[in-house]
């Protein structure tokens, strides 16, 4: 059943022009970023080669590209997830799922995996750019794999938060804005620590920045694979999926 709903959701995404537009726009912007990064790398390449232990092309081109991708997708994933549940509520098609012999968690997981499928396609499209460097030079494939995995976890977390926001309202636009607000807040939360001087504040800021979504992405971009970071993302995803299921069950309750 989960598979069925996921496939339906995945196909529905491509029935609307939104999915195509998102793929196109993301690709164009990232492509531009990739090319300009590559160009500046070419300029400094000769100087770098004289240095010992200098950063390679993976550090200077691939990591910035994927970290840029995370920020662009922070703006775009809310648009993908906004209509998951809210539109079904608005069009009252959710009745079809509520009346069918399936559980609430199957509905949420099905929808979630449908969106993940789309995000994987997006990820593959992005991965093609660094992989194209293989024609000309060697890149650190291990670091690339860690970074891609990190990006996937970040996107999966965005989507999990998005599906929860989508259960809260009947209006896709509100779901998108709230999700964007939440994700943006979780991104800038680590800025607080950077500017404060006093030690007490700094302590707070460090614990706050621990919750930052992108804070856990940076080690992976550098190729540092730490289970803490992975578990952070998995917990984040699980939390929002459980909240979504609870919310969906709550829709039917007397209130």
């Amino acid at each position: 059943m989960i598979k069925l709903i996921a496939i339906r959701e995945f196909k529905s995404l491509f029935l609307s022009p939104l999915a195509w537009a998102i793929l196109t726009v993301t690709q164009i912007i990232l492509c531009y970023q990739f090319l300009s990064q590559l160009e500046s790398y070419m300029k400094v390449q000769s100087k770098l080669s004289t240095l010992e232990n200098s950063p390679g092309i993976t550090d200077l081109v691939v990591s910035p590209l994927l970290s840029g991708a995370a920020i662009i997708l922070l703006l775009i994933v809310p648009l993908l997830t906004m209509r998951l549940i809210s539109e079904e509520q608005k069009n009252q098609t959710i009745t079809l799922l509520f009346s069918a012999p399936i559980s609430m968690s199957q509905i949420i997981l099905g929808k979630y995996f449908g969106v993940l499928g789309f995000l994987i396609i997006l990820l593959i499209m992005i991965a093609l750019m660094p992989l194209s460097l293989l024609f000309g030079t060697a890149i650190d494939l291990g670091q690339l794999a860690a970074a891609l995995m990190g990006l996937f976890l970040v996107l999966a977390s965005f989507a999990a938060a998005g599906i929860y926001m989508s259960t809260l309202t009947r209006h896709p636009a509100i779901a998108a804005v709230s999700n964007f607000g939440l994700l943006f807040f979780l991104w800038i939360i680590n800025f607080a620590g950077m500017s404060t001087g006093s030690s007490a504040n700094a302590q707070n800021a460090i614990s706050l920045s621990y919750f930052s979504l992108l804070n856990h992405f940076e080690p992976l971009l550098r190729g540092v694979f730490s289970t803490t970071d992975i578990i952070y993302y998995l917990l984040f995803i699980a939390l929002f999926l459980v909240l979504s299921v609870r919310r969906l069950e709550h829709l039917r309750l007397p209130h």
Partner: protein
Amino acid sequence: MGSELLIEVEQLSRHFSSSQSSDSLGYTTAVDDISFNLKRGEILGFLGPNGAGKSTTMKMLTGNLSPSHGSIKIAGIDLMDNPIEAKARIGYLPDTPPLYKELSVDEYLSYCARLNRITKPKLQQAINTTKERCGLVDYGKRIINNLSKGYQQRVGIAQAIIHAPDIVILDEPTVGLDPIQMIAIRKLIKELGESHSVMLSSHILPEIQMVCDNVQIINQGRLVFNASIEQLNQQMQTYSIRMSCQKPIDLQLISDLAEVESVHLVDNNDNSIMVNCSQSDSAQEQDPFIRLSQQLIAIAEQDQLGLYEIYPKKQSLEDVFMSLTQDNSVEQVGGNTH
């Protein structure tokens, strides 16, 4: 099989919180203490004015709303304890058909069928049979959004019956259909009623009369009438005669007749009168109603009144409906047939 209970509803209530509710409880009651049963092979009509709680009751029966109090059993399975098994036995058409408008009819029906546990090998057959039943055979490739309202409604019905559920619950199934489609859908409902149980709500009273075995009238969340269609027909039995003549009729003469309870002039222009027959024991050798009409004709002939119209004034379902829903103090009429 004939007596198998498919729906058992006991003391079902549903409250909605509202700030402007009139009572001190802080909520409005949409459905108030409803109990009823539905057997296999029965068609139950659900009548009531707007906002009476018809849709709310149906939403609770299909697991779209959870009740505040009371219990619902679907084919012996408690809907609260085991919602998934219970839902597998229900097909539901809500007041707004739950259609994914960007899909084609075939795609949509196949999705609905798979959601309702129809296995892949049986899928195509289920879709074909359902399309045939709902008159959608030539519409499989069409996008639902491009279909007319009536055809969208048909797709909604198809969605509700595709997995051959024990119970089909239809919320105003004939809304937006043209008269020919209406007749087709009524026929379909009759057919469904032979093998399944059907519960439908409607505003169209003759439709309920035509299709259903049992009728329930709900008003302000309460069940005010619950009886079989025969009992309803009895309730609607006529005891009035309307008669029109060319010359004025002597009201005194008529009111002196033994069978007459009351008589009054309806229209001065065409000398129409309404005669109410007294309801005596039916044990008598001849129906007083027939006797009365014979006497009236005899009087008209004798006095050469120029009788040109005489007919029994039928009390329609509308009249019963109005008297039940407008008078809140009315007691429950007719017993539960089960």
